[in-house]
């Protein structure tokens, strides 16, 4: 199966230094319950339906050869009946139906981002490889990074940290300028429960990359998404802080929680992966962010929000 790109988003000011284009790869080894890009989890092509954009013209219902679309369906499309022919996407006038995941060559990716090179140059920006998990398709991401490097583009990698480090050194590491590395939960069981995998490789990988950084290698920035009641607990943050500090890490970035991912699940026919008492429908308050910041700072880290 060929690696897929979910989206290339231009003009990002939040994914590294300067003005950046972000290449979102599709497919991820983790399964975080709160994943803010749920459509990036699976490595396969999917179909998405946005009820807010839909004008209710019913063209798709008549177009679909498999009769997989019905207004009575809570997800609009019966994904079991759909064979992903995308006939509906082609006829949809409003853009409510879209194909999720495109096959792209390295050159096609390069062509899409190179037009923004003048902006990278004036702002000291570049391209951020994100996902999904870019290292999920190690060779593909690495080749993409190499192409970008060759064209003098600054490359930043955002990673969940779960990968084979030797292959990483071989395929990706030489072609990137910066790594944003997620440290989500310190407790192994909690990590398994909420992220669908053990965190021991992730932590090992981080330690190794951090060591290289200390010896003049690619800069690594640890980042923690603040998920209310899951990652933003005093215990977890304190544990992250002291673990990082003991590895001579000086800086951490925290990412305040926002609920904009919630409705994304329904678009691709997925039920909300978290239910229960957690307050996940609200934007995180300034006070909560401040509290998290203070915990990490008390461990001796410089905290960026």
């Amino acid at each position: 199966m060929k690696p897929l790109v979910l989206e290339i988003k231009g003009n990002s000011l939040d994914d590294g230094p300067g003005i950046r284009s972000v290449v979102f790869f599709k497919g991820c080894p983790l399964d975080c319950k709160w994943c803010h890009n749920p459509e990036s989890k699976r490595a396969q092509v999917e179909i998405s339906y946005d009820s807010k954009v839909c004008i209710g013209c019913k063209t798709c219902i008549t177009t679909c050869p498999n009769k997989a679309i019905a207004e009575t369906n809570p997800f609009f499309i019966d994904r079991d009946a759909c064979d992903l022919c995308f006939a509906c996407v082609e006829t949809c006038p409003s853009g409510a139906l879209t194909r999720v995941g495109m096959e792209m060559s390295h050159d096609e990716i390069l062509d899409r981002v190179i037009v923004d090179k003048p902006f990278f140059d004036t702002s000291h920006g570049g391209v951020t490889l994100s996902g999904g998990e870019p290292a999920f398709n190690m060779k593909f991401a690495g080749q993409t990074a190499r192409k970008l490097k060759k064209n003098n583009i600054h490359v930043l990698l955002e990673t969940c940290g779960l990968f084979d480090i030797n292959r990483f050194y071989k395929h990706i590491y030489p072609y990137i300028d910066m790594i944003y590395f997620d440290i989500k939960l310190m407790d192994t069981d909690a990590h398994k429960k909420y992220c669908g995998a053990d965190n021991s490789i992730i932590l090992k990988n981080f330690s190794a990359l951090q060591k290289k950084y200390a010896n003049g290698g690619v800069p690594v920035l640890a980042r923690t998404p603040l998920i209310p009641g899951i990652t933003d607990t005093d215990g977890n943050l304190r544990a992250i802080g002291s673990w990082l500090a003991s590895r001579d890490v000086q800086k951490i970035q925290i990412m305040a929680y926002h609920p904009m991912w919630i409705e994304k699940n329904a678009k691709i026919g997925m039920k909300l992966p978290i239910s229960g008492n957690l307050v996940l429908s609200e934007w995180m308050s300034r006070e909560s962010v401040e509290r998290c910041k203070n915990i990490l700072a008390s461990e001796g880290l410089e905290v960026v929000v």
Partner: protein
Amino acid sequence: MKTKEALKQVCTNLLVTQTRSPEHKNGLGKMKNVLLNTATRLALKGLATQFNLRPGLRKYLKWADGWINFSVGLRTEDQSVAASIIFSNGHVNVADSISDHVDVTLILKDESILKKMAMSTPNELLNYILKNQVVIDGNMVFMQLFNFYLSLVLGRIHQHMLNRTNTADIRERKKAVGPCNKQLAEKLAARKAYRMKAAPGIDAGVKFLTDPYLSSYGIEQFPRLAASLDRHFTQKPEVCPERPLLLTRWFRKNGFETDVNGKPWVPELRQAESFKYLMENKSPVIGKNDLLAGCTTTKPVGVLLFPDAHGAMIWGELKSSEKRVLNPFACTPKTADILHHEVFPFWTHRNFREVMREKYNTPLPLLIDERFVAYFVWKSVGISHTIPDFKRVLEKGLAGIIADIDARLLESRLSPDQKNSLTAMKTSLEGVIAYAAHLSENAFRLAAKETDKKRKAELIHMARICGKVPSGPAQSLDEALNAIWICWIAVNMENTNTGLSIGRLDQLLQPYFEMDMKTLLTSAEKEEYIKHAIEICGCFYMRMTDQVPVLPDIANYLFGGAGSTQAITLGGVTPDGKDAVNDMTYVLLKVTEMLAIRDANVNCRFHPGKNSDHYLKRLCEVNLITAATPIMHNDLAVFAALRQHGYPEADIRNWSATGCVEPTLSGRHFAHTGSILLNLVAAMEMALHNGTHPVMRWAVGPETGRVEDGDFKTFDEFYTAWAAQQGFIIDQAVALNNLYGKVHQEIRPTPYLSAVIDGCIKKGKDLVHGGALYNSSGTSNIGLVDVTDSLLVIKKLVFEDKAVSFERLKQVVDTDFANDPQLLAMVKNRVPLFGSGDPSAVAMANRVTNTIHDCYKKHLNYRGGPYTVGFWSMSQHVAYGTLSGPLPSGRLSAKAFTPGLTPSPNASLNFLDNIRAVAGLDPENMDNNIAFNVKLSPKPGESREKTIDDMHAYVKTYFNLGGMQMQFNVVTSETLKDAMANPENYRSLMVRISGYNAYFVTLNRDIQTELIERTEYGL
């Protein structure tokens, strides 16, 4: 029982026949017309009786020189209703018909409008006129006078209606927006508190400032300026009768068409003599606590009147302008009486529009103009949008210029015309010198009375300065600024105060700043002097901003919230191509930042490779703090646009912005850059309707084919049809501008401005005859993106994808897309629009701008110069939007166009796509500049430095890619909405419309909505 049923039967029959039989219906229609005619005549007779009987009203039937005689007709388009009212020698009569000699007629679309009119407020009536439901045929000044008479009788009722509408409007706004969020206003104001510092030694021209950003200065250190600001935002501008009264007095005595001996006047000499009289007799006002002597009006915040140019456009509102909702003007009863009894009646026929109407017998181009939908020609208002040669004024003094004129007058072989023109220039300069002398005397007089020591010294200082400049050369910053200011007052006494501009103020002042600095020894002295420089420049801005153009209520809809739009230009390169950024650039940027006022309209040039990033970052920071100024230009793109005219490179490098954004070669160029404001969408509508404009209901254009009949087999065939309609409209607008040029030559030469623009003395010719070294006329073409997007939609959906037939598309467009939301969705989603990142959309925009450019370049103006082509829109994109029908682009009827040439919010969510598209436009087609409007919202909590770095990166890259101009609104839609509902918290919230700045709360609701709906990009 039987009779009842029979009666019912008869009634039913009657109704049926009434609806079925056309003859019968006509019969009833006629009966109705008899009723309506009777009602109309009765209403007019009521009015006539009141004026015939009530002495309080009768006194308004005459003026200083006798009875005011005129007549007004009122009829429907098909003449089903017709009546007229005749004011003759103190008697008012009503007639059942309209005489051929009627002065002005109101033509109503149909009878329904008559009923609506009877129930509507004056500004609702204006909307009927703008939307062509009511057409005015004839003398506009008499229409104004008739409105004045109506206001005398109905003013109270109208005011009551207006108040009611206004209260309802405020209630509705508050309801729509929800509870007031005071934090938003506070956050905006808090931007001033943090100010970035800068290192010295980066800009070669900055010789004295140790922190060029002058971060230690804030308005709190300048109580004098803070007080002026407070006055600016609290005091209603007041109509000042001084200028028109003095002038009218002179003309009544000395004649207008002929002199006291009955000999026809030489227009140049007449204008010079009257101007001199005005300057000699004008009150030498010195503002309380001001550092600059002189004032255009006698009021602290004054409205200037030019009945001698654009007629008495405020006549109808003399009694109501104080109470109108938007931008009210105070007008005392005494002023109203003076204007009615001693001024306005003199000018009923002696203004640009009416001379044009009489002389050229209401030519077609004027008829189109008076339907408001297609174009507006600024020469109906006056000479505007021009920049004097202040460098020469400062270096030589006016006496030095007079000496030059004298030397020319001694030369043999001067024609009588040349002699007259030169004599007129000299006479007018003498008037300005006399005014300065009066200022000096008054300053001494005030100083003698002054008890405060510090103020006394300031007054004596000013008295000495005015005794020296502008007659002699300036030798200090204070002298230079006072000289410019006095000469600026004179410019605004001679010509209508719209778009007249100062030029490169930092370049003009730097030599004097340096002269002063070199005399100072200690750093404390220098610091004190820099503070003084900021303060006196602040006084200069405040003086500029406190003279307001006269805006009738109709202008609140056409030119919402505009001040005089006096551009000043900073930065760029010197005529020999060196970095021109200097100490005064930063001093003036400081003033711009601290005052954050709409006028002066600050335009900054950036020359990539010559000007520093550090300067560009300062421009971004001032934009962030003020939310909307200065405008930023890329020198390289402007140069590329100007080179097609073959101007010398040194003059091109010396360009400055005029009015909104338009380039003028400083001091030697009569570019009248705001000559024509043209609605591009009109031609698109006409192309879709075979030459008929739907709003005008007039088959005015050429027949270029019917969409319904399948006349267009290819896209290019339709493009050709559109280009033909566009060419037709441009031909008409240009013809009107050229005819107005001739009218200017006849009634309004401008000897003083001629004396201070390079070329006129040498040629011995007035500006209006082409005396300036360089001549051109500038145009602004509004709706470029809506037209381009419409063409893209037609090309793709009809001719490429064949997704819909042209007939069907047109049918759906004509219904405002009401019956086919699917097609509307396709239009919005399936077509890569201008600004989407699609290169073929940029190519289409270039094709369109090129076609428009070629249409104009076929013509020369009345001074032999070329027409230049701009794509900025003031607020016309809103006004023309409300007057235009739906478009294939998906823009619905009456919605605003995109401002300037800004991509539509539908084009892309990615700001970089927008930037690339606009930067990809060929500058050669845009030699009167553009307006690219960008709304940015800073991220809460982000550091000032990071925000400025990001803004800088956008602007810098846009310029590197070849973009010509960019202007910001750094404010969120959320804040604008809060301001819409709670104006009391936002009196000073400044916004950039499309070229000029205005205060948000003074704008009409359509413009406010357009600003709110602009795409907002986060920082």
